[in-house]
Every structure is written in structure tokens, then in C-alpha cells.
């Protein structure tokens, strides 16, 4: 009876869902859209019955399942962007939508709250609306990112199941073509306007390179003008086609150092919500923001294999889209062995056995070592510190001097 009372109480708060964890649990609010991490005391106060996970007096910090899952429906895309991280092609195998209900059931059983559907070009996949509907039916909120190419006015009107759709726009005007290798800014802008006209919540994704960094203010002006809900800035990743020119295209150290103050000032001036992707976290921590603010708003680094999981187009599960899949059936790992899988445990446990200079870094607990995709590309080992982190770079330079 008490449990039924909690269900009624939480569903009355704008369709909230709750999932228990060893420290308490996560309440997923629809309005405001938020994942609220609460302790056991608050869930008890809300009427939640005792949970076996709460038996320990010293709760852990790891999630028992992903909170968010990134699901690549296919690597099929005809845009041929220069830095495509999945090396997508016009012809590639795709997820079979006949399997949507089964996978959605597994995600629901695992307690996943949000799913970002990716590609390839996800909106060109005929099955994406079936997948989105299957997720919605289970209270899981789907979202996606598109180049904008498939977004006709008719398609835009059929995307009501999506909580948010971001359009990839690395820069405006001629800088778009320089970044992507083709001039389709007008296409992307049309997609933004069509989605907004259809009532979809729209954001912008932009990959940062040393060539687009100076074009950032113009992009943020555009975002403000279009009144998008947010801009997410992404670090270039050395995967897929991005690997070939990574060293020439990645941010310069001075640009990375200037990123946070530049973006914060731009966000303040334009009253714009700006996100950075998790791989840029080391360039946030280098400015030593108040750790209490970082912790409360979950301004974290790598959460691969902890709150984040990824499903590839072949149905294999990994800790993040850039990492090798783990062994075993994805559904089984999601629903039964997420906490015990050795590779996932190693990813989330980086902080527990971190090498220098991460070991003594005050941001280690939040950062968890920087971006694993960059580490594996530059060092051959995903479990080495991110070599582009300013602290790691300084440490390496010091070691090189000592060796001389």
C-alpha cells in the first residue's frame, strides 16, 4: 500500500519516475525536466519502502544501471562529414525496428531514463519513429541529433515523441563548409526552423576544432537569434573519419584554456544555455570552479560504464559510444551484470586506482581521468590519463625535462 502511495505521489509530480540506488535514488521529473539525485532519507520521507540497496550504512557512488543510453540505430548517412566519429556511409546495416519492443523492455527493466538515438543520420532511419514510440510508451524519453537533411515539414510534425532534437551546426555561413567539408548550413537552418514550427524543443550541437573556435561567437549569436533551447559544444574525437586529421584539427592548448571563460561570458551576455560535452571537463576543472557547484549540478567528466551506456548498430553494449563493446548479450548486461562486468567496472573505477598526475588531482572524483577515446588514440590505452588535460600535459613536460 505504501508503495502504491509513492507511485501515485510521484506520478502526480508531472509524471515523475524513481529508481533506487545505494545512496538513495534518482527522481526523473518531466517538468521541470530534471534528474534529481536524492538520499535515502528523502525517498523515505516521500513514502518509498525500504530497498535492499539501502542496507549498507556506507553507500557506494556507482549507478546500478545506466541513467542514459546512447543508441546508434545505424551508421547510414550520405552527408560524408569530414570528422564523422562513426565513419558513417550511405550504405550500412541498420537496427531492425521489429526488435524495438524487446530492447525498450530491457531498457525499462534496467531503469534507463533517457535515450539519445544516434547514427549515421537517425532521422533517415524508417524505424526511428517506432523506436521512439516504444521508448515513450515505457516512460523513457527519447532524443536525437540530426544533420537536418531529412527534416521536411511533414517529418517535423511526426516527431512529437522526442523530448528534444539537436541539429548539428558547427559554425554559421562559410565556416560551416570549412568544418564539415560541404556547405549545408542553409539545410541545417531550415531544419531548425521546421522543428521549431512543429513545436519540437530544439538545440544545436557544434564540434569544436581549432578552425571553428574563432567562429564560436557568431554561432552563439545565431543560436540566440533562433531562440534554441541550448547549444552543446563537443570536443573533436579521434574516432571514425576524425582520426585521420585529429592532430591538425583538435583545439590548441590556448584555445582549450580559453574555452570556459569565453563560453561563460558569451552565455551570460546572450542569456543562452550552453553545455560542454563530458570530454571537455578537464578544461573546465583547470579553472578550479567551486567543487560544490560542480558536484551539485553534476558537471562531471567521464561517466562511461556508470551512468552512461551505449548500444551500437550491431546491438553491442559499451560504456560509451567511443569504446569497444563488452562481452555478452547487451540485454543481459543491461539488466543483470552492469554492476559486475569487469570492463565497465574498470571504466567507472578509474578514480580508485588512478595513476599520476590524476591520483593527486583535486578534480579526480568528478573528472575520472578525462576522455577515454582521446587516451586510447594518443597512448594506446583507454585507462591512461587524457594526455590533452592541462595537468597531464604539464606533468608529461616535467617528466621529459627530468629525463633530460
Amino acid at each position, binding site marked *: 500500500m505504501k*508503495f502504491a502511495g509513492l507511485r*501515485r*505521489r*510521484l*506520478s*502526480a*509530480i508531472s*509524471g515523475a*519516475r*524513481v*529508481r533506487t540506488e545505494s*545512496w538513495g535514488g534518482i*527522481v*526523473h521529473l518531466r517538468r521541470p*525536466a*530534471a534528474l*534529481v*539525485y*536524492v*538520499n*535515502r*532519507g*528523502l525517498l*523515505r520521507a516521500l513514502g518509498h519502502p525500504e530497498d535492499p540497496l539501502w542496507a549498507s*550504512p556506507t553507500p557506494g557512488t556507482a549507478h546500478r544501471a545506466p541513467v*542514459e543510453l546512447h543508441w546508434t540505430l545505424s551508421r547510414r548517412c550520405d552527408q560524408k562529414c569530414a570528422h564523422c566519429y562513426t565513419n558513417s556511409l550511405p550504405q550500412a546495416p541498420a537496427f531492425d525496428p521489429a526488435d524495438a519492443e524487446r530492447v525498450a523492455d530491457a531498457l525499462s527493466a534496467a*531503469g534507463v531514463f*533517457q535515450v*539519445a*538515438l*544516434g547514427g549515421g543520420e*537517425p532521422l533517415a532511419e524508417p524505424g526511428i519513429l517506432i523506436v521512439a514510440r516504444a521508448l515513450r510508451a515505457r*516512460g523513457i524519453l527519447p*532524443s*536525437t*541529433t540530426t544533420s537536418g537533411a531529412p527534416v521536411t515539414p511533414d517529418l517535423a510534425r511526426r516527431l512529437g515523441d522526442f*523530448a*528534444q532534437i539537436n541539429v548539428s551546426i558547427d559554425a554559421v555561413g562559410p565556416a560551416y563548409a570549412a568544418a564539415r567539408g560541404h556547405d549545408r548550413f542553409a539545410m541545417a537552418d531550415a531544419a531548425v526552423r521546421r522543428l521549431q514550427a512543429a513545436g519540437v*524543443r530544439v*538545440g544545436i550541437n557544434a564540434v569544436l576544432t581549432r578552425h571553428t573556435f574563432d567562429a564560436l561567437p557568431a554561432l552563439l549569436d545565431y543560436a540566440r537569434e533562433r531562440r534554441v533551447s*541550448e547549444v*552543446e559544444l*563537443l570536443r573533436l574525437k579521434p574516432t571514425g573519419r576524425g582520426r585521420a586529421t585529429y592532430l591538425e584539427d583538435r583545439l590548441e592548448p590556448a584555445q582549450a584554456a580559453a574555452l570556459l571563460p569565453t*563560453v*561563460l561570458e558569451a552565455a551570460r551576455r546572450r542569456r543562452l*544555455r*550552453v*553545455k*560542454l*560535452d*563530458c*570530454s571537455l571537463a578537464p578544461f573546465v576543472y583547470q579553472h578550479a*570552479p*567551486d567543487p*560544490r*557547484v560542480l558536484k*551539485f*549540478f*553534476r*558537471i562531471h567528466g567521464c561517466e562511461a560504464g556508470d551512468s552512461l551506456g551505449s548500444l551500437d548498430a550491431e546491438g553491442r553494449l559499451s560504456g560509451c559510444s567511443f569504446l569497444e563493446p563488452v562481452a555478452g548479450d547487451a540485454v543481459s548486461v543491461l539488466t543483470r551484470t552492469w554492476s559486475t562486468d569487469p570492463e565497465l567496472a574498470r571504466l567507472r573505477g578509474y578514480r580508485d586506482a588512478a595513476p599520476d598526475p590524476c591520483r593527486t588531482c583535486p578534480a579526480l572524483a568528478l573528472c575520472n581521468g578525462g576522455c577515454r577515446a582521446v587516451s586510447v588514440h594518443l597512448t594506446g590505452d583507454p585507462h591512461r590519463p587524457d594526455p590533452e588535460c592541462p595537468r597531464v600535459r604539464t606533468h608529461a613536460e616535467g617528466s621529459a625535462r627530468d629525463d633530460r
Partner: protein
Amino acid sequence: MKSPAAERPRVLSVRFGFNPNSSSLGIDISFLLVGLGGVSVITAALSAWLSAAPPPPPSPGGGAAS
């Protein structure tokens, strides 16, 4: 040491919005502009929001996944 049952109700952290990017997680640095004052205000607002839920609807509804 306090027994677990006596744990004071607390909001530990929060992540607002969605993350449509399917290759990495978004971290909302806009909140660095609000600082510790923002933490206090949002903690209080979320606590009140969760604690002062409206009366339960007449029949159990969907949405709660616990």
C-alpha cells in the same frame, strides 16, 4: 553514528534537461554562473517541489517506474 533510517532528507544533485547528443554527455556549465547561491535556491525549490506533491489522483497512473 546516525542510523540510516534517521538520515535527513536531502537533494544531492541535479541534472536539468535532456542530452540529445548520442556520443557524449552534456555538462551544463551555465550553472557555474549561478554559483553556490544557485545551489541553495534550487535545493530548496526541488525539496519543496518533491515534498509538496498535490493530492494523489483518484487512480494510480502511469509514469512511476519504481
